[in-house]
Each structure stands twice: as structure tokens, then as C-alpha cells.
């Protein structure tokens, strides 16, 4: 997803990337400094221009909640803060091992659905977002957004309760599967979207093919005020500045 939003013109200063593992430069990666989405190795998701904001042991549940709610230490640099206000659309994509109502962080702790719901509630009270698009790819992912109760949140999960989210494409050069099915088909869809695209969130959701993803993606729209068929993908995934045209000339300079 980092690759997708960056390709759509969102600068690194507006992206906060948290990576617990150093997959790209790990000595066991036989293709150094690259992470591919497919064994054919045409699309490098890591890229040669990546900026990671939280890495290694910094990726903890505490830091994630602090980041969302803005309660960070005084010395924290700008790229480790979520500098948003009530005009900001926030897109959160989480993936990893998880289960009913939890997602694992590192190998030692987990965030649960109540933690995220509470953090979003605080964000709403502190006017830290206008709308949130929350996408999560993990086993039983749809349980993760079931506890949300703050307005203007659209949530998408990769699989329903009791279902696994499966990985995709085993790479025999690396000895691991390179991507998750849900993430891969999202990525594939977004490769066809560009800045001028008029595709909407409803198009994205309609493109989910249950037989390919091998789980049932869920969407929760009851908190989201807008009609999905009228919400452009670029509202969350691209840096598109909307120009509002007025019928009359706007007076400049004569403030008296």
C-alpha cells in the first residue's frame, strides 16, 4: 500500500510507515533491498526511494496508539507524528498475524479491537480526522472493526469471523510466500488507478472476488456518512487538490 499511495502523489512526509522487520536488507533475502509482490519479480514494493518512520523494536502497540492519539514525547520528530486535523482524511492499513479481535505486533504483544476503537474515539474528540478509511488484512479481520463507534469511519476487513486470510504466491527462490491474497488483489486493482481516476470505493469493493481471495472481505458502512458510489478512491489514496469554481469574481486586496 505504501507503493500505491506514493505512486498516487502522496509525499513521504504524509506517510507513516511502520515496519517491524527488516525484510529488504535481511541477509536471508537473496534479492537485497527489494520486496516483490510476485515470484516474477517485476514490481518492487520497497522501491529505491523508501522512507520508513518506525522500524524494528519501535513498532509497538504503545507507539501506535500514541501516534494515533498524538500523545507522543516532546522530542519526537515530525515524521513520527500524525499531524492531522479535522480536515484530514486518514487511511490506515494494517496487516499481520491476528485472530478474533486482535492483531499481533512483533512476536510478543497484540492490539485488540477495543484499543483501536478507543484510539479512534479519542481522535474524533481531539478533531484529528475528518474521515478514516481503515483496511485490515489478517485472519478473522472483520472482527477488528466491530467495536468502532466513532463517526465517519469506513472499515474493510479481509475475512469474516472464523475464516483465515491466506497468503499468496510461494517464491521458491526465497522459500516463503511473498504476499497475502487480499493485499495482492487490492494492489492489483490499484495498479489500474491513477490520479485522474474517477473510480470510487464502491468500485474497489465490487472488485473483490471471493473465489480468488479465498475469504469473505467485509465492509462496515454504518459509521460512514457518504455514499460509497460517490466517494472517489483519490480522496484517500491520492494527493488530489480539488478546485472550487465560483460564478463570481472573488475580491482580492480591498478588505476595507
Amino acid at each position, binding site marked *: 500500500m505504501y507503493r500505491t499511495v506514493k505512486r498516487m502523489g502522496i509525499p513521504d512526509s504524509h506517510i507513516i510507515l511502520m515496519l517491524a522487520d527488516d525484510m529488504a536488507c535481511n541477509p536471508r533475502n537473496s534479492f537485497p533491498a527489494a520486496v516483490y509482490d510476485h515470484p516474477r519479480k517485476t514490481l518492487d514494493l520497497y522501491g529505491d526511494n523508501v*522512507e520508513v518512520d518506525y522500524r524494528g523494536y519501535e513498532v509497538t502497540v504503545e507507539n501506535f496508539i500514541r501516534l494515533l492519539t498524538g500523545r507522543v514525547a516532546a522530542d519526537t520528530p515530525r515524521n513520527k507524528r500524525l499531524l492531522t486535523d479535522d480536515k484530514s482524511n486518514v487511511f490506515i492499513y494494517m496487516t499481520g498475524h491476528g485472530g478474533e479481535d486482535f492483531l499481533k505486533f512483533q512476536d510478543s504483544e497484540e492490539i485488540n479491537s477495543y484499543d483501536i476503537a478507543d484510539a479512534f474515539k479519542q481522535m474524533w474528540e481531539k478533531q484529528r480526522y475528518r474521515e478514516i478509511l481503515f483496511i485490515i488484512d489478517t485472519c478473522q479481520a472483520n472482527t477488528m472493526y466491530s467495536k468502532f463507534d466513532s463517526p465517519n469511519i469506513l472499515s474493510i476487513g479481509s475475512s469474516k469471523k472464523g475464516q483465515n486470510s491466506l497468503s499468496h504466491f510461494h517464491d521458491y527462490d526465497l522459500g516463503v510466500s511473498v504476499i497475502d491474497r487480499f493485499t495482492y488483489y487490492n494492489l492489483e486493482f490499484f495498479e489500474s488507478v491513477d490520479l485522474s481516476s474517477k473510480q470510487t470505493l464502491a468500485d474497489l469493493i465490487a472488485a473483490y472476488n471471493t473465489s480468488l481471495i479465498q475469504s469473505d472481505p467485509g465492509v462496515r458502512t454504518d459509521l460512514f456518512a457518504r455514499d460509497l458510489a460517490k466517494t472517489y478512491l483519490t480522496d484517500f489514496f491520492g494527493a488530489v487538490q480539488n478546485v472550487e469554481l465560483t460564478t463570481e469574481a472573488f475580491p482580492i486586496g480591498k478588505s476595507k
Partner: protein
Amino acid sequence: MRFPSHIALALCGGLLTAAETFTEDLLVKPLQDGRVLLHFEFSVQRAAPTANDTLHHYQLFPRQIGEISRRYDVNELYLSFTQGGWREGKWGSPPVNSQGIGAEVRARIKEGDPAKSESQWRGLTNALSGVFCASLNFIDTTNTATPRLTFADADSPASGVLRHGYLPRENVCTENLTPWVKQLPCQSKSGLGLLLNPYRLYNTDFHSMELSLSSMKDGKGTPVQQYKQRLSVVVDPGTLGLGDRWSLADLVDRQLGTACPVAARSTVRVIQPGFGLKLTPKPSETSKLAGRGVSVFDLHKQPSVDIVFEFAPQEGNDAWPSERPTISAHRYVTGHGGSSGGVESTLTNRGDKPVNVTYLDVLPWYLRVYSHTLEIQTQAADGSWALLRPTSVAFTPAIDRERPSSLELALVLPPSSRTTLRYSFDKGFLKYTEHPPDANRGFNIGPAIVSYQHDALSGELPLHCAIEQALAGPSECIVRTYTELFLASLPTPDFSMPYNVITFTCTILALFFGRIFNLLTRDFAVLKPFEA
């Protein structure tokens, strides 16, 4: 009216570029085992900002660094990220003065209120962590030392306390290179920055990326600030499928273009192994470096040059001169079990003169060093052992969860000798929550640093000094040798124990409670058989 303003602009631009100079150089050195060392060096120099300079104008000098140094009163700053060990037996002396694995930060912060400079150091490491996408914010008082002997370079006019922080587990990858490249005046658009291809730079046996900010005086005695960015990698043409004939473009998979237009000097220098290497095209000039011939390609004169390297088939490695540095240092961890251990360091002096060295070992608080166990023995060339007394000892004991222990020794290593240092430690207990997520892996412990002045010694100049003197002019040569890291395995608790205790206790409680509740509340009565 337009014409004079153009002249004024041009004049203004001329003056400003004259105040800041930028040079870029790449050194290519074929190594004995067929690998190739690439050493990039980018340097910006500007007049030192004065206290009443309120404009804070930046042209070539990176603004990020200027602002950080101003905000945190930093006179001297050094940051390096290194992966892979430098094999001095095969590769000779390293091209950089710091080759310890992990991330190292050193800064000299202006003297002042200790509490303020402590918070400035914390602010500095946090700011650097933001700029360079690294976990440098993990440097706090528990892994910061203030060595007095090791980094006391006499030529530095900067005053203040030098703090030294080390993160032995920090890795280096594309995300660290991205901001580093963005600080170059031409980024990766032209000049030598074009060759910085992360796919090749991380496919290496040794990778070291560093930057240093220093204050000094130029030839006229005016104070200047110098910012240097260095990147050294050891590439193996063999693993890239290249044989005896390849070009620089094959090696890094990028084509060289024109020189960076604002660079006062832009060169590629090939250090000749002395035999068997043919270069095409012809270099712009040739010079000498550490007794070797150097072919210099000036990118201003030869833009888009693609240097082709052709190696004659070799008959053994006998012709290669031995380039082992005079002093080498290794450190091992001794002992076994979870309660105690020790450190054994070996310092070898291959020269024919005694050498004054300083030895610095900073150990985290959970390795409790016993200074009375320090034992220094030296073995002469004839095999006889003798005790060696240090000329000075500076030992700072650790405080739990507050500061590391630091051992600094000044030693005189006898000629042709091997000196062994031994000291023991106990392993402390960490709290349940102080363990990292992969607790059973153990803790990486940063290297010991051995430093000495090379000037008084005979023999070949170490490579990093030779580079410094060839590019910047004569300077004194201080060598720092870093030992290996070691892995300390501390006693780890059974992380599932609280869960086990809870389930076990609850089971017993439930059984006990059920029984007693039954006994207390039930009324036991003898039932009469049903009478029909």
C-alpha cells in the same frame, strides 16, 4: 532596469557559491580476493555561522544538518551505519575510520548546564532518528558514554563534552540511504550521486554509510564548518556474474553522466593494485596514494566516462602487497551459563616500535563488570609472557538502568607483541518488561575501540588517512580499530509463566471452592425409599 538586477543576481550567486564549496570523489580499489572497494566521499565546506547570523542561508550545505547543529549547539557530529565485518587480512586497512557494526553517534555539545546538554543530546538523537529513518531515539543515558581519551583529537578547536552512543543492532537499508542522498546538492540526478543504486549497494560484503560535521580553520585561519558524507561498500563482481573484464557501469548498474555542476571537483580515482590491471579510457591524470599509483578521471573533463577494468589472469596472490594495519584488535566473550561471563580482548602490534593506544569498552549496565578482575598480559615475539601496566585507567562503573560502565585504558603495546586483556562480569536480571520481543536471541554488545596515532609509526599510511590527505591536504592520522560485537545471552524468564500460574491457581481455587461450597450449602439428609 532589468539589466543591472541580473548583474546583481549573478554577483550575489557568485559570492555565495564562493563561500560554500562542494567536492565529490569516488575511489575504486580492487582488493586481493577479487572484490572491489567503492568509496564515495562528498564534502561541503562553508564559513562557520556566527552568533549574530540571523539569516541562516543555506545553498549547498544541507539545511537539515545546519538547523540541527544550531538548535542543539552541536560543534561536532558523527553518525555511521555499518553492516558486515571488514576483513583486514584480505582487504588491508579500511577506508573509513569507523567500522563497528551497527549505528554509532558521537557529538560534541557546547559546554553549559549539564541538564540542558543532556536534553540537547536526547533532542539531537531524536532529530537524527527522524532525518535518517533509524531507531537512533533508542540512544538514551543507558547507552551513552562520555569517553575522555579515545576521541580527544587535539586538532579540534571545538570545546564541549563529547557523548558517544552505540546501537549494535541497528541495520542499514534503503530507507537510510534515501535521506542521505537527498542531502547531496545534486542528489542522484547528476555527478557521482547517480551511481548510488541501492540494489547494488546493499548486495555487498561490507557497507558503511557515515556523515560527519566538524569545525576547523581553513588555510587563512577563518573558522569553517565541514560536512562530509562517506559511503564505502565492498562489492563482489563474481556474484554479479562479471568476469575479468567489466566496467564501472556493470558494477553498480548505473551509468555515469556529467559532473555535478556545482562541484568544485568531481573525480573517479582508481587505486592500482600495481600489476595486471588495464583501464580504458586513459585517465585525465595520474598521481600517488599510499605508495600506489592512482588513475584520476575528472568528470568535468571526461563527462559520462565509463571506465572499463581489465584484469590479467593472476598466478596466485603472491604479488599482492600485505596491507594489514599495524594494530589489530579482536574481542571474544568467555564463560558459559546465565550468571556470569567475561571478556577477552587481543591487541596485536605488528610494528617494530612501541605504540601508544587507548582502549575503550562500554558495556551496558546489565553486564556488571568487576574492575578488580582486569588483567593485562603481553606476549613478546619470543613467546614469553609479561604483565603490562596501563599508563592510565579511567573506569566509570555502571548505575542500574541509568548509565553503562565504561573502561578506558591507555596502554603502550611493545613491538611485535600480542596483548591480552581479560575482565569478568556478572549478568544482571532484567525485569519482565525490559526484555525485547525476541528475548531468547540475546543482546548485541557494541564493539571495543582501540585508537592510536599513526604519525609516529613507520610503514604504509592507513587507507582512510591516505584518502584524507589526497583529497583535503595534510592532517594528522588517527586510527580507530573496532572489534567484533558479541552476543550476551541473559537469563530470560518463562514468559508464559504468569498465564500458567493464573490457570493453575484458578483451577485449584475452582475445585476447592466448589467442594467447600457444596459442603456448606447442601443439606445432607437420608432419603427414605419410595413407598409405593
